């Protein structure tokens, strides 16, 4: 057990920080500090490509696919320095954190060649087409249909809550390929190009006024017969493999964004005097402690190499951070007082802390709601009986 970093790792940290700070002070100064997912999307695609061109996009991937083969410690360091430098979140998050690792694990050589270098180069932006109007927590009840017609899959149906579909190039879709099948059987995991007549995207406005997610309609949408990961009918396993990558190194970068939010609250509390309120002090201390425990929980999860046992740190990570952040949003508003409920913008646009308050209500919903997380912890972690299924 060792928490510190070695000399050469600290050197790597300095190298990351220098490069990132130089970019944020220079060519990409206009995107520094952006906290929403949608702002200046086009510039941020250019940023993805810039990262790729300098070999900083997917440093944990093997060199042959556009990565650096970086060690765990180096990935941790890069993620931390990335956020510390005020670099906005990756608009290709789904491509680099989910689609890429899934292709690395389950894709064919041909598919790896076809997709991985372009994902790393920021040329292929992916979005995730899992949820449907009738299939949210119960993902296995998806109804979107896929049938083979000659050399192509033809897809009919609807996805919903598709984040960033409007700026993406590709979408992966879990579709029912076996007529009359039910539940996790008979599903296939397809990769489809978005820019085609059979796919239509309509934005959905969210409670914070932003429109990060969309409805995605498939009406005779097409992709080649081999544009699938895994075998026909094996889509559930592929989807589950993909979701397991949600607990990767990106969590550490995310935490640095949380650090910026907590620092914003601390600064606001000092400025308006609430920093001397003993109850606010207790809550800020709890938030600080919670953030540290998130960091070390992630370190434990990433350091764990024994995958034969259920990893409690990994299993609890989602509900831990989501709940922490929701509490943080409430703390932010209690520190700001009524001043937090007005914005200077005529456009219903919110600063970092009020936006945190609103957006964090989604954190406990997407990626498996808190209730679903509790089911998983009790069932997988503790071996409790599974929830019964209805017939409907």
């Amino acid at each position, binding site marked *: 057990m060792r928490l510190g970093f070695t000399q050469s790792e600290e050197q790597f940290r300095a190298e990351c920080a220098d490069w990132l700070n130089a970019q944020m002070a220079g060519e990409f100064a206009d995107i520094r500090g952006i906290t929403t997912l949608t702002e200046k999307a086009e510039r941020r695609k250019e940023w993805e490509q810039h990262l790729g061109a300098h070999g900083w996009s997917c440093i944990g991937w093997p060199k042959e696919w556009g990565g650096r083969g970086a060690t765990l410690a180096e990935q941790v360091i890069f993620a931390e320095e990335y956020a510390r430098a005020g670099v906005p979140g990756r608009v290709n998050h789904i491509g680099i954190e989910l689609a890429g690792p899934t292709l690395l694990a389950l894709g064919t050589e041909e598919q790896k060649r076809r997709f991985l270098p372009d994902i790393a180069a920021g040329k292929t932006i992916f979005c995730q087409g899992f949820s449907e109007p009738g299939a949210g927590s119960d993902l296995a009840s998806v109804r979107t249909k896929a049938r083979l017609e000659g050399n192509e899959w033809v897809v009919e149906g609807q996805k919903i809550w598709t984040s960033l579909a409007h700026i993406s190039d590709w979408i992966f879709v879990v579709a029912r390929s076996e007529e009359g099948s039910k539940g996790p059987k008979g599903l296939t995991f397809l990769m489809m190009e978005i820019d085609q007549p059979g796919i239509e995207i309509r934005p959905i406005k969210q409670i914070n006024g932003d429109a990060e997610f969309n409805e995605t309609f498939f009406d005779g949408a097409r992709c080649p017969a081999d544009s699938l990961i895994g075998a026909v009918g094996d889509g559930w396993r592929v989807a589950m493999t993909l979701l397991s990558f949600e607990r990767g190194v990106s969590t550490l970068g995310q935490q640095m964004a949380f650090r910026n939010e907590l620092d914003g609250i601390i600064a606001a509390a000092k400025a308006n005097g609430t920093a001397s309120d003993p109850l606010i*002090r*207790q809550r800020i201390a709890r938030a600080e*402690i919670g953030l*540290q*425990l998130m960091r*070390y929980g992630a370190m*434990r999860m990433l350091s764990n190499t024994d995958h034969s046992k259920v990893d409690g740190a990994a299993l*609890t990570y989602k509900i831990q951070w989501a709940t922490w952040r929701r509490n943080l949003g409430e703390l932010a508003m209690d520190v700001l007082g009524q001043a937090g409920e007005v914005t200077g913008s005529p456009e219903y646009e919110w600063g970092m802390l009020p936006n945190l308050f609103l957006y964090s209500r989604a954190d406990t919903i997407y990626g498996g709601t808190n209730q679903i997380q509790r089911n998983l912890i009790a*069932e997988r972690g503790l071996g409790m*009986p599974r929830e019964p299924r209805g017939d409907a």
Partner: protein
Amino acid sequence: MDFAFTDEQMMIAETAKAFFSENATSERTRAAMAGDGIDHALWQAFCTELGLSGIGIPESAGGAGLGLVELAIIAEAAGAQVAALPMLGSLALCAQAIVAGGSADQQASHLPALLSGETIAGYAHDAALKADGNALTGAAGFVAHGGAAGLFVVTSNTGAWLIAADAPGVTVTPLTTMDQTRPFARVTLNSAQGEPLANPAEAIAAAHRAGFVTVAAEGLGVAQAALDRTVAYARERVQFGRAIGSFQAYKHRLADMVVEIEQARSAVYWAACAVDEGSDEAALAVHAAKSFAADTAFKCAGDMIQLHGGIGFTWEHDAHLYFKRARSLQSMLGSGNWHREQVAAMILGEAA
């Protein structure tokens, strides 16, 4: 950066776990509760046969070397059985104070008896202690296992002394205590002659660090055991024709325990490791660990009673041992609010 146990640490954990679950049985603990709150045979075995008492004490001082991570591993295992042992007072607080703040002579004359278990030591803190030279007058109200102690480390906010329990001017009054596995005593000093520790500031700081981490680690053990025992019960107890563990309200409460326990685990080993590595984060980490893990222990022990129903409220069931230990972990060595205020002061500055 590697936040996983080494093979050696894993071995210590297995040894400690096996030792406590075999020997610190409910029956033996209850026998100790009827006496001075110490299973003396267990303490002897722990100190001499297993030789675990020297862990966290440098070899130069007669210990086994290693650090707070290993001490925490042992405290976690002891906490999981609510073992009736004077480990906190004797080893974590007093021995650490003597190692960090005692002269070579003081170490040589006191540590061997503490590590062999021959002498039990109690940590008596009185912020208002009056020291006339080394003649001490004051009182410490809640000295853990004080009734069994032969030696006290007495501290004020700035000074630290050694004093024998049978020295003139020392009165020890054992108190009937809610947690009978760690009863308190009131220690009163009336111009009692103390032997000053050479470096009191170091002694106090080291005792605090090790004490906070040990309490936190015990809390982690308590919480995990409360969960494990409740999970076992959830499988076997049937109501409404199904195992009670199949009810979602029940499952979710278990899941919430896991979420807290995983964070407590991170807290304990982060703090222990930060102290061992001399990291800048250590000061914050020990307060975080103490407050978080003690609260986790209390939450889980409370849930253990609720999720067992009536049987959990009986004297016969062990749930109350965990519950009472958890309560004392929360209040000893500073309340959760006090520890969080220390954290707040570090990030916000002193309270106005």
